[in-house]
């Protein structure tokens, strides 16, 4: 009789240990608004963050099953180590090596974005993934077919069950899952952030301080701190590429005032997100600075801020560049939670 009680107690103990480990593995995912930042644009109330939802999103983000021939995943063009940009590719390539018309931008702090894509054609974070998924030269796939493919995989049925309570896979759930991963891709730990927070690793050199001053004077009205974007569209004086003939926002709104306007990208981790601009025409940051300093092409919709040349000296340009490097956030670029999910799930 006594034995039985012992066996019972040991059983209970094992059960609790197992549950505890399960809980540790599935620790809740928290979205934190850094001090002094505005409220995010994304409405979390309709897609409550959970560990299971986040890990489902991570699995989907890295899975080429999202493309028609299972060759391309989101991560193919959005690599963590380079700020989720497509490093060294001016125009990104998709399925069967087909070349797109734009540079895959980095992903950083997307929960604060109002519009997505260089032309702002996507109006909500949750449906952003649909654009590359359905684009015939990117992933060339339909959401419906993805649902069918995922439904045949036991690991996905389990992952959806953990995330949504039952194993039904729907288009909405696929998109909500990916969104749970995306909204966590937040960078707020660069040297710049530490400087703002007066932390001890955040001491700026004279050069960096001077660069920040120049930045605030010449760049900050569009690349607004702390997100380093004002979430708006602007014509930044780039010559039209005659082969691409990309008029940006105009292709969405058909409003002449939007001609040649593109989304103002965040500059966070800019050190790693090269090449730059919507068509990746500049390989180096120095080329970008030269463009703004003396390469602006005037046209009807050119941003007001760029009407007058900046006329920076070589020294000032160097200082500005040194400041831009303080926007790199290694803790984001190497955050284990955002990397390829190796553990079996």
């Amino acid at each position: 009789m006594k034995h039985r009680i012992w066996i019972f107690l040991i059983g209970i103990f094992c059960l609790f240990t197992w549950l505890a480990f399960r809980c540790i593995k599935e620790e809740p995912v928290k979205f934190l608004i850094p001090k002094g930042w505005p409220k995010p644009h994304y409405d979390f109330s309709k897609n409550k963050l959970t560990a299971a939802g986040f890990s489902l999103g991570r699995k989907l983000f890295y899975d080429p099953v999202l493309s028609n021939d299972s060759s391309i995943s989101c991560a193919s063009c959005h690599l963590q180590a380079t700020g989720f940009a497509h490093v060294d590719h001016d125009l990104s390539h998709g399925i069967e090596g087909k070349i797109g018309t734009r540079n895959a931008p980095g992903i950083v702090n997307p929960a604060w974005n109002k519009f997505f894509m260089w032309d702002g054609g996507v109006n909500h974070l949750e449906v952003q993934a649909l654009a590359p998924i359905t684009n015939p030269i990117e992933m060339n796939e339909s959401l419906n077919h993805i649902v069918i493919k995922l439904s045949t995989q036991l690991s996905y049925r389990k992952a959806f069950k953990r995330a949504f309570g039952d194993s039904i896979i729907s288009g909405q759930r696929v998109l909500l899952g990916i969104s749970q991963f995306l909204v966590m891709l937040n960078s707020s730990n660069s040297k710049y952030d530490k400087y703002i927070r007066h932390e001890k690793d955040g001491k700026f050199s004279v050069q960096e301080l001077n660069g920040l001053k120049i930045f605030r004077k010449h760049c900050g009205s569009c690349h607004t701190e702390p997100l380093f974007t004002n979430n708006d569209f602007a014509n930044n004086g780039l010559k039209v590429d005659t082969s691409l003939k990309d008029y940006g926002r105009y292709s969405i709104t058909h409003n002449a005032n939007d001609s040649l306007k593109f989304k103002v990208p965040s500059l966070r981790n800019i050190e790693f997100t090269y090449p730059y601009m919507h068509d990746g025409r500049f390989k180096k940051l120095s080329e970008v600075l030269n463009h703004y300093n003396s390469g602006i092409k005037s046209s009807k919709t050119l941003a007001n801020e760029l009407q007058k040349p900046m006329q920076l000296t070589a020294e000032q340009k160097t200082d500005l560049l040194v400041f831009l490097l303080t926007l790199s956030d290694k803790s984001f670029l190497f955050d284990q939670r955002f990397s390829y999910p190796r553990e079996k799930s």
Partner: protein
Amino acid sequence: MYVAFSVAVYGMKAQKNEGSLIIKIHPVFNGKALKLTTEPYVNAHQDSLFIDVFKCYLSALKLSPGNGVEFKETKSYHLINADDSISLVFVIKNIPEGNFKTLSFNIGVDSISSVSGALDGDLDPSKGMYWAWNTGYIDAKLMGRSKQCKTRQNSFEYHIGGYSGPNKTLQKVRLDLNIINIEPNKTTHLELKAELAEWFNNPYLLDLSVTNAVLIPGKEALRMAENYADMFQVLKITSPKK
């Protein structure tokens, strides 16, 4: 406790005085039952054509008595698809008993849904009625072939939508039912026809050799939407048996 009890009683009572309405849609072309792909039809411009795809959203269904309280269906989105007979029949439940004179609904999806991210049910973006590159719902789709179209495989494609500013394609429909009877715990049947010939005429006469691809919001989409706005008409009402 008392509140819970009274709510429960009220709930039971409310249920007793409610009935349902089954709506069945019959897609037709020039009055003849639509046969996809194989049956040739002639539009107002006298172009011969085949229909391959017809899909559209019906939303915000509302029943109005002459005077009194309207009934509005909650979460009212129905995607109908000529190729899926199940989608052509849907039930509206929990309608308070009474006589109703008009049925109103929209062809298409409201703008709020078009800016609300990933939604479920008939609004799930996997249903193929969602634009990815310029986000928003496609209100209605009509696709087919005609010799008049000098396009690949002589195809014509109309994906009609647009939710913002002057490009709003949502169409309001109001159908006179004369009188429709909703009785407690019983089902009333309403059959509607969807006359696809309307897409090609009234007020704008369409020439398939000119207009064969309308795939983005804008002026042409607005015209098409105005054309199809009156495609739904009442065919038959069957009141519950006494």
